[in-house]
Structures are given as C-alpha cells and as structure tokens.
C-alpha cells in the first residue's frame, strides 16, 4: 500500500518536472528560436545555430544545456528534437498562427460557409501579399469612383444616393464625383474611432487601412450589375427593379460581414462586438441619410 502511494507520488513529481522543464524551455526567446530552427530543419549543427542566432558560443551552450529535456545531441554531433521538444515545437507553431490570425476558424458551420465569401488571404495578408492587397484596394477605389460617376451615384457608407449635380457649383460636383474615395476614408476613420473609443483597440491601424477597401468589394459587384441594368434600360421593368434592390441588400450584408470579419481579425475583437460596430455604422449612416432627406 505504502509502495503504491510512493510510486504515485514519484509519477506525479516526474510529471511536474517535465511540465516545468517544458515551460522553462519556452520562457526564453533564444531557446524558442533553437526549438524552431531544429523543428523546421529536423536537425541542426552548432555552427548553423551560431550563425542563425548571432550570439556568443557560451550563451548557446548555456541554452542548449537548459534544453536538455527537449533536445539531444546524437553521434553525428547534430542536435535533434526529443519527443517533448517536438511537442514544444508544435505548440509554438500553433500559437504563432493563432496570434497572427485570431478567429481564423469559427466553430459554427454557418460562419465557415460565410468565410467562403471572404477573401481571408487579402484581409489577413502576409508580407508577400501586402503589395497585392494594396493593388486590389486601389483598384476597388478607382473602379468604385468610376461606377458611381457613371450611375450618377453619391456613395454614403454602404448606400448609394442619386443626386442631380448639374445645378451645383463645380467644387461640389468634384466632391460628389469623388464621393466614393471620400466615403472610404470617412468610413475608415469612424470604424477606427469606434474601436479605439469603445473597445480600446488601437493596434493594426495601417494594416486595417490597407485592406479596408475590400469591404466595398461586394458593392462594386452591385454597381457593375446596376450599371448593366441601367444601360440596357432593364431597370425600368418592375421585376428587374425589385431584383436590383434585393441584390443591393444581399451585397450590403456581405459587405457588413467583411467589415465585421476585418475588425475581428485586425483588432482582435470578438465577432459579436465587430457585428455591433457594423450595425451601429450601417444604421447610424441610414439615420443620417434619412435626416438629410427630411
């Protein structure tokens, strides 16, 4: 009975020791780097580690010793990950992905289906895709401006209003014709302010700006379809007019979803909070629009 109790205590002590060495190993940046280097290359030599880390030989030996439970030096003098080291490497890899892209995967099937409509690649974008994201964003802004001018629309958040600009001053005409660009910046500033004031989230401002135009992507599709209806005069047919309005609602909801997702990813907000911001903006914009009419 006493032996069994002692055995159990020994096992528990061993587990605690393993856990401690695991977290101790991960607590230092150089040790984390060593684990990543070995994990990515399967094994590594001391010289390679020295070149990659750029620290003194003594420092590397000190950290290698601290990692004795996680790595081992085999007969070929190369360093390999032990079982615990492999766990540590996988854990580091998973955590980095989670930190880089929170809410990347949703539990709900419905949300995952919605993600099919969301270009995660250009909203989350890595360094390699940054230039493409910027080009797409600029393309959306330019195309949106052209389509608004062609349809005689003034862009207001996710709404488009028809305004007769013929009797207006040339300055107002220029302003209304560039409403899509002005609306883009105004929209961004308001979103940024809401997330800073209400949710104290000030990170990733430039990254959010770089991909912010993607939110208007569904509205560009709507504008293209509306232009086709308009120029073919189909818009005057009752049912086409109805379809046009339904399309607008559908694309607005898609845009609102993109806005919520972008905020969730870039600002680290819960999807519920991002949806509240989208809702406040959309219906706040609508109230302003209605007050303008009245």
């Amino acid at each position: 009975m006493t032996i069994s109790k002692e055995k159990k205590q020994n096992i528990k002590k061993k587990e605690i020791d393993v856990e401690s060495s695991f977290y101790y190993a991960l607590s230092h940046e150089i040790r984390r780097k060593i684990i990543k280097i070995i994990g990515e290359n399967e094994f590594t030599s001391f010289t390679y580690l020295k070149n990659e880390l750029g620290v003194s030989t003594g420092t590397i030996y000190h950290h290698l010793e601290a990692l004795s439970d996680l790595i081992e030096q085999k007969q070929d003098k190369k360093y390999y990950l032990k079982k615990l080291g492999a766990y540590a490497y996988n854990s580091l890899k998973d955590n980095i992905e989670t930190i880089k892209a929170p809410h990347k995967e949703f539990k709900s099937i419905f949300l995952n289906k919605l993600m099919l409509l969301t270009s995660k690649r250009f909203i989350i974008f890595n360094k390699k895709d940054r230039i493409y994201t910027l080009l797409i964003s600029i393309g959306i802004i330019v195309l949106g401006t052209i389509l608004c001018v062609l349809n005689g629309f003034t862009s207001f958040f996710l709404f488009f209003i028809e305004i007769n600009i013929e009797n207006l001053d040339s300055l107002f005409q220029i302003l209304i014709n560039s409403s899509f660009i002005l609306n883009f910046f105004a929209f961004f500033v308001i979103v940024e302010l809401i997330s800073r004031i209400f949710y104290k989230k000030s990170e990733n401002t430039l990254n959010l700006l770089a991909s912010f135009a993607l939110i208007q992507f569904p509205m560009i599709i709507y504008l293209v379809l509306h232009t086709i209806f308009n120029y073919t005069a189909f818009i005057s047919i009752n049912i086409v007019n109805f379809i046009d309005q339904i399309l607008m609602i559908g694309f607005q909801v898609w845009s609102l979803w993109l806005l919520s997702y972008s905020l969730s990813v870039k600002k680290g907000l819960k999807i519920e909070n991002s949806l509240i911001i989208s809702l406040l903006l959309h219906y706040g914009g609508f109230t302003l629009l209605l007050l303008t009419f009245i």
Partner: protein
Amino acid sequence: MQLKKNVVSFLLLGLIGPILLIISEFFPWFSSYNLVELFIITSFAEIENSFLFLFPVISGIVCLIANMLVIYNIEFRIKTVILSFVGLGFQLIFFIDYISLEVGFLTNAGVGIYLGIFGFLLIIINIISVLTRVEKDSGG
C-alpha cells in the same frame, strides 16, 4: 429551461418588432391607402417600383424567422443577426425610397409610419441585446 429563458428575454423585442412591421403593412403611412392597396394600385398601373410597398411585410417576415431561431437556440445568434441584417435591409430601402418620395406629407403621417419606425427600432435593440449577451462560446 434555456428555451424558456430566451423566450422571456427576446420575446418583447424580437417578436413584437417584426410583428409591428408586418401590421404596419395594413395601415396607411402617408395617404388614405394602406401599403397593400398601394401595391395593388401601382402594380396595375405598371409603376416600376411597386414591389417597394411590400418591403415592410417582407422585412417583418425575415426578421420574425431570424428571431425565432435565437429563441429556439441561443447558439444561432450569429445566424439571427445576419438574417436580421437582410430583413432590415428591405425596411431601410423602403424608408429611404418611400419617405424621400413623400417627405412633403410627413406632417400628415398615418399610424403605419409609427408602427414601422417603432418595429424597426425594436429589432435593432434586439440585435444589440442578442450580440451583447455574454456567452462562454464566442465562436457563434
């Protein structure tokens, strides 16, 4: 128990809002005709946006379905919100198109407009209440 709790918390806002929107369809907004009558008249006259007069009832039905989902199961709250966005989209277009047309008669507004605006506000408050409900599971 969960069902009962959600029914109590979402019943007032979530169901009364859409029902008010649906009812508003059968009351006059700016003229002596209600919206169903206006739809029939404009359809016969082949006016291009006659379907606009059906938007409050479409909006009410979509929001009603959305809110039934969240009353049935709180886990469906994101679905409810997205569906409510779709439903309210119809009402938004109706407000913008119809009120801008009839803005001159705003002082003679009928019962319909009050029911419509009140129902619309209740739905928005309900969405915020659904989203701010603290849940352990935040994945939707």
